[in-house]
C-alpha cells in the first residue's frame, strides 16, 4: 500500500474547480474560441480524475481512457475550429450572440 502525495479529496476538489471554471467559461464567454477552450478545460478536469483513479486502483485502463479523451479533444477542436472559421466567414464575427438564426 503506497500513498498519494495528498488526500484523494484534494484531487477531486481541484478537478471540480477546473471543471466549474470550464462551465463558467462556456456560460459567460461570448467569444466562441474561449468557449472551445473552456470545453478543453472541462475535458482536462476529467482527465485529471481519470489519472488519479488509475493510480488509486492501479488500473492502466484509466490512463488509456485519457488517451481516448485526448483523441476526442483533438477531433472536437478540429471540427469546432472549422465551424468557427465557417461562421466567421458568414458573420464576420465569432460572437455567439450573433448566432441567432435558430430564433423562432
Amino acid at each position, binding site marked *: 500500500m503506497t500513498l498519494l502525495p495528498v488526500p484523494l479529496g484534494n484531487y477531486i476538489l481541484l478537478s471540480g474547480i477546473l471543471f466549474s*471554471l470550464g462551465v463558467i*467559461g462556456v456560460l459567460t464567454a461570448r467569444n466562441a474560441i474561449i468557449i472551445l477552450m473552456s470545453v478543453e478545460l472541462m475535458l482536462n478536469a476529467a482527465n485529471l480524475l481519470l489519472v488519479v483513479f488509475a493510480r488509486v486502483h492501479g488500473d492502466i485502463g484509466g490512463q488509456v481512457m485519457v488517451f481516448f479523451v485526448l483523441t476526442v479533444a483533438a477531433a472536437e477542436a478540429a471540427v469546432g475550429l472549422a465551424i468557427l472559421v465557417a461562421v466567421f466567414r458568414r458573420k464576420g464575427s465569432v460572437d455567439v450572440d450573433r448566432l441567432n438564426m435558430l430564433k423562432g
Partner: protein
Amino acid sequence: MADQLIFWVAAIVAIIAAARVILLKNPIVSVLHLIVTLVALAVLFLQLSAEFIAALQIIVYAGAIMVLFLFIVMLLNLRKDEFGRDQLPWLRLLGTLAGAAFLAELISVIGGGRARAAVLPQEFGSVRSIGKALFGEYLFPFELTSLLLLAAVLAAVVVARRRSPSEPENFQPAAPVNQAAGNGGEA
C-alpha cells in the same frame, strides 16, 4: 513533503491560469494561459505515475491542439475589442451562479478520503504498459478512434472549405462597434 509542495504549486498555478483563460478578453492570452494549465496538469500526471500521458499532454495537447487554437485566433485576427456591449449582462451572473452551484454540489459529496493508493506493478504508466493495453484489451476502441479522427478531418475540411464561386460569400466585416463598451481587458 516535496510531493505535497509540488501538488499545491501545480494546483494553484492550474487554477489561476484556468481562471484567467475565461476572464481575459484577448483570445491569444487565453490560449497561452490554457497551455499553462495543461502543463501544470502534466506535472500532476507525472506525480501519479502517468509518464506517457504527461508526455502526451505536453506534446499533443499543448503542442498540437493549442497551436491549432492559436493558429485560428491569428488567422481570424480576433482582437479583444471584437464585441459590442453585452446585451444580456445578467446572463454572466447567472452563468457564474450555475458554475458555482455545480462546484458546491461537487464539494458537498467529497468525502474525507485518505491518500491511500494501490501498489503499482513495474512500469505502470510507461509507454509499454499503455501500448499493451491499447493493442490488447482496448484494441477495438482504439481502432474506432482512427475512424473518429478520419471523420473529424473530413468534417473540418468540408465545413471550413471555401464556398464555390457561384455561391456569394456573405462576408460582413466585423464591425468595430462601441469601443468604449469593451472594458479594456488585461493583456
